[in-house]
Structures are given as C-alpha cells and as structure tokens.
C-alpha cells in the first residue's frame, strides 16, 4: 500500500480509536457479579415478578400493588452498585437518561414525584420495613431477615439464571 494512503488511513482511524477509548471506562462499572435482590415490605401481596414486570414498576407504569396499596419506589444514590445494576439491566439507561426520564414522567402528569433516593443500606432497610408497598434493590449478600425477597423470572438471587447481576 502506498505510504501516503497508509498515513491518511491512520489519521482517519484516529478519531475512531479516541472514541473507543472514551467509551471504554463506562464498562468498568459492571465488573462485579454479585446478585441484586429485589426486596419489598413484608405485607406486599406479591412473591414473584417477571423482569418485564419489575421494569414496569420501576418505570412508574405500574403504580399500585392493588387498589389500596401504592408502590413506593426506593433507589440507591448514584455510584452505588445496586443503582448501576438497576440502571443497566432494568432501565437500560445512563445516569443522565434516568434523570431526564423522571423529569419527563412528572411533566407528563403521570407521577407526582421521582423514586425516593436512599444513601445507605441501613436507610434502605428502615424505609422498606416502615413504608407499606416499598420496593428496593439490595446486594443479595446483605439481605436481612424481616424483608420479603421477590423471585424475578422465577429465580432467587444466587440461582444460575437470576437476571439482576
């Protein structure tokens, strides 16, 4: 190949390489592999949800467990692994898209408030225990007794085909 053409090709391919390098760090967040358990208030009348149903709940499209019990959504603050998994697997959104999604959702008069943000596991457990209809996502290694762990697609955390990891 002509050296000039080689040089031109190298220059042209540079932006592609730069873009690949810039894109790479986002995948570093997904290096862990612990399961994320879906926990609800013990009185919630549900034991099993499909991943699509979990998504419906998280998107605010399902807002009631039944006529008397509204869903109360709890999500960990940014950078927590639980949040990373929820955004990647369920929402399939970036952090910015997630924020924009909830601003738009409220603006469309579909909900009055975004999910409640929790800053620690302790706070998460306290809130799920205290608020009827609450649903949260916790590291399966840290699940405490007294909360109901939901099956997702028929699987519990630790099962081979459990989808939230």
């Amino acid at each position: 190949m002509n050296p000039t053409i080689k040089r031109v090709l190298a220059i042209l391919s540079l932006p592609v390489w730069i873009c690949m390098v810039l894109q790479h760090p986002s995948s570093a967040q997904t290096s862990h592999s612990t399961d994320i358990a879906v926990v609800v208030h013990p009185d919630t009348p549900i034991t099993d949800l499909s991943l699509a149903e979990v998504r419906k709940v998280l998107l605010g499209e399902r807002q009631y467990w039944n006529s008397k019990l509204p869903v109360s959504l709890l999500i960990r603050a940014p950078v927590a692994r639980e949040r990373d998994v929820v955004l990647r697997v369920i929402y399939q959104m970036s952090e910015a898209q997630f924020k924009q999604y909830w601003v738009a959702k409220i603006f469309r008069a579909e909900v009055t408030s975004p999910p409640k943000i929790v800053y620690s596991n302790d706070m998460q457990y306290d809130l799920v225990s205290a608020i009827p209809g609450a649903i949260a996502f916790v590291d399966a290694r840290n699940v405490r007794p007294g909360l109901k762990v939901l099956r997702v697609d028929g699987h519990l955390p630790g099962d081979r085909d459990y989808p939230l990891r």
Partner: protein
Amino acid sequence: MQRSLLVFAVLFLTATGVAWGQSSPPPDQTEQVKILLERIQQLEKRMSELEAKQAAAPAPSLSAAKVPLPEPAAAPAVQGHQHDVSVEQAAVRQMETHYPSLQIRGFADVDFSATDQKGTNSGFNLGQLDLHLASALSQKISYFGEITFNARPTQYTVEVERSIIRYDYNDYFKLSFGRFHTPIGYWNTAFHHGAWLQTTIDRPFIVKVGGTFTPVHFVGLLAEGNIPSGGLGLSYNLGVGNGRGDVISRPGDAGDINNNRAWVAKVYARPPKLYGLELGASIYQDKITLPVPNNQGYREWIASAYLVWTKGSPEFLSEFDNVHHRNIVTNQVTNSDAFYVQFAYRLPWLERSLKPYYRFEYAHMPLSEQVFTHQDQVESILGLRYDISSYATFKTEYRNTKNQPGVLGSLAQPAVNGLFFQTAFTF
C-alpha cells in the same frame, strides 16, 4: 445574515467549550467517591454481621432489682446507638410523603433564527418560560399544573396550559378533570411545552402551539389506565370535553360554544418484551361552530395513529393524522392529512451527549377546506442536539420548508432555508 450567523456560531462554540470544560469532573475525584462508597458498604456489611452476632448471643435476663449500674465507659456507646436509631427514624419520617407535597419545575429556552425568507429578520428570541407544578394531595389524589409565559412584540402573555386534578383508583382507572393536552397521537402528550424534553427545536406542524390542525388543548374530564392485556401492555384514554372554541386553536376554557361535547378515545400499546416500542391510535369527534361566516357548523373527526421507538439509540417517532370536516348544512366533506417521521441516534461517544436527528413533515389541506387555511407544507429538518448536562442542551438545526397555498404538486414558491439554534433547559 452571514455575519450574524458567523458571530452566533463563534458564541455557540465558545459556550459549548465552556460547558464542556465544566461538565466533566476530574476522574480522580470520581474514583475517590467510589472508593469511599465501597468502604461504606464494607463497613455496613461488617456492622450487620456484628448485629447478627449480637442478636444470636443469649440475652441476659435482667430483673429491675438486678439491673447493674451502667459502667461509665458503656454509657456513651448506648447513647450513641440511641442517637443513631433516632437519626434513622427521623430520616425515615422525612422520606415518608407529606400532603400536600408541591414540587415546582421550570423549563425555558433561548433561540436564534436566520432564514432566507424575504421580509424576515434574523435574531434572538425568548422561547416559552414554562412552570410545572405537581402536588400529591393524598395517597390517591394529585394536582398538576402548567403555566407558560410567552414573549410577544409588546408584552408577555400568560397561559394556563394545563390544570388537572386526578383521582387514582388503581392502575386500571384514573379519573382527571381540568385542562389537558388532548390525547391525540403521540407528541402532544409526550413533550407538552418543555423544549428541553423534545429532541428537536420545534414541534411538528400538526401539534404546533397556536396551530389549528389538531386541538392541542381540551377542557373536560379524562379517564385513563392500563388494560389487562398480558404481553401487549395496552393502555387507554377516554375523554369528554368542550372541544374547540370560537377561535379554533383554543379550547372552550370559559365554556363551550355549543351544546355538543367533544370526545376522544385513545388506545396504545407498550409491549414489555419490546422495551422502547409504543404504538397507538386515537379518534376525536367534535362539532365546530365558526362565528364567521354565519355561525357555520361542521362535524369534525380526527383519526390518528403513531409508532415510536423511544430509546435514544435509535429514536424513531412517526405520527399520522387525518382531519375530516363535514359541513352540517351542505354536507360538503373535506379531508386534510399530515404526518411526520423523525429519526435520531444518540451517539455512543462523549458520554452519549450527542444526538443527530432528521425529521420529514408533510401536511396537505385541500382547496375546498373551509375550517383551516388552505396550505400544503413539506419540511425537512436536519439537526444536532448536544446535552451539556443532564438538564441543559444545545440544539442546532437546518430547515428547508416549502409552503404552497393550493394543491400539492405545484410547489412553485421558492423553498425557505433557515438555520436555528436553541439552548433549552429545565430548572
């Protein structure tokens, strides 16, 4: 025009550069936060292990008489634990919803436009300043309001865009009263008046603010909810209201202009297996009374269908509307059609902040049309959206518009080319 465009382009690039510099936090800071959070998680895990051990140990059976005096060193620890518990309880109480819980959010945009249309000037203009109110009044009752401030040549106009009170029974039945955006098609209820929400600078012709093609607003009641439909993910909207007012671009806010109520029905599907897909159809019926000439009455039917894929990579929006008018006296019938197709793709680089897009629009109103102004319009839009942060964006667009009164196919008027810039944000 060229000079002003050049100046604007320089300003735009400078602003973009500044925003770029501000939006990316130093990587080591992010790393430190990550390390700290991991450390917190480890400590939390350790604490839960200790608590579990403590709970497993046999509890000493103490009677009141045998309670030993607290050791001086143990007292602060007990007090500390009690303090932690009360802090957590306070946090829980704080997180519980209180009524009414008013939340206010604003949307605004600043625009610049320059076209080659004779008689128009290039320049800046303020878009809409839009305030949105959302308040839960109880567990099942909510209020939503939207107020816009619009710049006019001599003043600002204030408009109540939406004012809705909603009663939720469950996911299958929610009943609202007030002033809505009419659930015809997709765009009108997806983006409302917030320019920041929509990918493009402007709304399509069929849902233009102040436009007449479809009634953008609706005063009355609206029932909505999900339909038990398994994998189809169906939902519905059913509304009854005043319909178009004396000025057909406006609803009858202060009362209907005739004794005929308009109604609207919409069914749409969001199949859970095809996350991002939404398709729907709607029908709207009204009786229009035009004061000029001679209080002429018309039956109006609007049929609409849409198909959208709302994920950013790619984003695809398409919507078709047919507006059918029948003169009640002469039975003369006209059909006007309009559609748009919009394609956008959020590029994977630069934190997915860039989104190029293209939209094609077409509208046809026949010469015999008596309710609308006769006009055919074909428009192509090519643009780029750049999200400078999660809540602010820059958009730049090139538009080519052909307007022609009369029949399509004789687009003799020169096309209008224009460059448009916008910064839109929410606060």
